[in-house]
């Protein structure tokens, strides 16, 4: 596996980076994160329309850009770098992958085109009140009623769950784990935002009370859903790399210009060596994330291993980089007005989302036979 990007991919990165530099600087992020939905609708539309991000991995036949996971990795990395607020992970990664992996053709035909245009926000709901990210902990049972289905119970930690137009719900039937489509405005559905640690990504709790749902899968989806989750953490790992790189850049920039005792603080080994260690970790994290994205694209047999490896490693690296960035900034890094805390909170939240480092190290150990 040759872990380098093509010229076209480098160009995509440049385009995406420029786009977010223009549209999602720190001031914009602070404005967007305070909006009720947690993102700016105009920016979302521009992401979809101007550079085709919403439907990046939606196949062309469904109106998407038809790109693969390497391109998605680039986009996630660039969004992570600036903490872009958007329901991207929910709709363009997780829900899109769930539709591609699990949904029947009719559903794909009906949802993917409007996801690609950015008109439809979709998300996946599977975790329940225990907060456990294992699919085996899904206990919700779907009841068939007439020619439809009803859902009862709760789903937690749903990405952009309040903003979503469509929720893909994982629930059990006699055949196993299946995926259901629930409309955002469905009867008996109550949605509430969690007060999140991370200000830049919304999570919701959803309560279902005899909520009508459409089953969109056929037969047990356990394996397909494992792949969906693996693909999700691969994208998240790429996002983490972008965030970690931003923290390193910020720290190096500050250490080069902040003077104490008549010298730039970056000239002191205490700071310089911290930055060097961060550099090593960030480069390794890039390797991990790229390897996972390239596996997703080219070596599906390696996906689960590469995904857990990347999520385990990148989670810790991002957290460490975000924490060191605060430390290197000293008191300033601890203030609300400095962006360091936004990265720190995102780092911790993304480490916890979809299973933390220890969770994925264990998964990896099992896969490689330790």
């Amino acid at each position, binding site marked *: 596996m040759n872990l380098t990007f093509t010229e076209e991919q480098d160009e995509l990165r440049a385009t995406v980076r420029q786009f977010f530099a223009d549209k999602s600087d720190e001031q914009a992020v602070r404005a967007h994160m305070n909006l009720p939905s947690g993102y700016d609708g105009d920016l979302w539309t521009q992401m979809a329309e101007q550079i085709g991000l919403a439907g990046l991995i939606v196949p062309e036949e469904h109106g998407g850009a038809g790109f693969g996971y390497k391109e998605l990795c680039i986009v996630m990395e660039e969004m992570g770098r600036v903490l872009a607020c958007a329901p991207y992970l929910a709709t363009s990664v997780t829900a899109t992958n769930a539709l591609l992996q699990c949904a029947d053709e009719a559903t794909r035909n009906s949802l993917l085109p409007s996801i690609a245009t950015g008109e439809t926000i979709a998300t996946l709901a599977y975790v329940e009140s225990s907060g456990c990210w294992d699919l085996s*902990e899904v206990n919700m049972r779907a009841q068939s009623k007439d020619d439809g289905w009803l859902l009862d119970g709760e789903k937690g930690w749903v990405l952009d769950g309040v903003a979503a137009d469509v929720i893909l719900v994982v629930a059990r039937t006699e055949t196993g784990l299946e995926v259901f489509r629930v409309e955002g405005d469905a009867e008996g559905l109550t949605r509430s935002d969690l007060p999140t640690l991370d200000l830049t990504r919304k999570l919701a709790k959803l309560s279902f009370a005899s909520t009508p749902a459409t089953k969109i899968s056929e037969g047990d989806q356990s394996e397909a859903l494992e792949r969906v989750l693996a693909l999700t953490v691969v994208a998240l790992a790429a996002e983490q790399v972008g965030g970690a790189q931003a923290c390193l850049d910020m720290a190096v920039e500050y250490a080069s210009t902040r003077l104490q005792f008549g010298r730039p603080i970056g000239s002191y080994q205490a700071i310089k060596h911290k930055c060097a260690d961060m550099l090593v970790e960030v480069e390794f994290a890039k390797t991990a994330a790229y390897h996972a994205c390239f596996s997703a694209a080219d070596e599906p047999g390696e996906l689960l291993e590469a995904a857990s490896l990347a999520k385990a490693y990148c989670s810790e690296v991002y957290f460490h980089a975000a924490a060191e960035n605060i430390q290197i900034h*000293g008191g300033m890094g601890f203030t609300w007005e400095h962006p360091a805390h936004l990265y*720190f909170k995102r780092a911790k939240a993304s480490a916890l989302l979809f299973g933390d480092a220890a969770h994925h190290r264990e998964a990896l150990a099992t896969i490689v036979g330790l």
Partner: protein
Amino acid sequence: MSEYRSMSEDEVRERTRALLEKIHPEKSDSVTFRRAQYDEGLAWIHFPEGYGGLNVSPKMNVVVLDEISKHSSVVYNDPPAGLIGIGMGAPVLLTYGSEELKKTLLPRIFSGEDIWCQMFSEPSAGSDVAGLATRAVRDGDEWVVNGQKVWTTVAHLSKWGMLVARTNPDVPKHDGLSYFLLDMESPGVDVRPLYQITGEAEFNEVFFNDVRIPHEYMFGKEGQGWRVAITTLMNERVAIGGAGPRKKGGGSISQLMKLWSEREKQNLSPGQEAVMRDRVSRLYIETELLRLTAQRARAAQKAGNPGPEGSVAKLAQADINKRLWETAVDILGSKGLSFEAGYELRQSAGVDASSTEAFAKYQFLRSRANSIEGGTSEIMRNILGERVLGLPGEPRVDKDVAWKDVPRS
């Protein structure tokens, strides 16, 4: 301050009872009672007579408090916002203040009528405190101050501020500073809350725009400000270094153990449980050692034989505390993703302790400052390396150079 005169514990208790006979906490407000306590020399008992003390050993201060608590269900402790004035302001005032200022202000400090704040740190002078840039320029009988301070606790409540400013930029940094007592209500003083990662503002920024201070409010001589300030800073470092809880398993580790015992069991596989338990056990060890090392340091100090064990607490505690609260959030797992307290910007000193879970999440954020405030861990390592282990210093580029010629950001 010279020798203390000897006074028996009994006499101190007797004098305290005499105070209580004149005025009883249960029947008076805090200010009235503490003013009377001051008048009887039972405020800072080691201060001279007439200044809130009796010139006896500071050990006797606790005896006074003990005697009061024996005879009263109400005990007026030092008001929290008053701690800086009581602990740092009063000694400085006593040593350097004019007779008039001492007579007027000492009782008001002790009573809690006047809150004091300390204004040393500046945005450009963090670890390098003595590099501060706030300028004071003499104008007749006054000094005109311009500049900015930061990390100023209770500034928004303060009547008086202890201010260090640069009065001579043409000499090396330590030599060009002077120490002032500033009336915080003076025109040109602008106090703004400084919000932190938690959304709280424990501190303030203070801006000075042509603020005028009478010359007689200078403490110590012109150019001696660093010497006056240094004692205060030392007190702060000791205070923040802290000692941890005195009880086994007390303090933060008890919160962590509570979270651990109440964890969602199905959230973790047996393997993950074991890994996490090892982390908690490690933190149990370290917090115990923090506590016991402080105990050992106190005992050694008492025995007149203090060793390095007293110097390591600040550095160790910062690191342990950060890891402890990070572990707490990891135990919470997905629940750690929510932050119920919210982030409304607010100016309060209160910690959300409504639940162990909420407290842990707050501390997860708040503890990140532990390795910065009161001396960064990097500076603490320099101090341990150079002052305790005797390792050589680094080449200095700011030594013997006029402050104005030292590069700064």
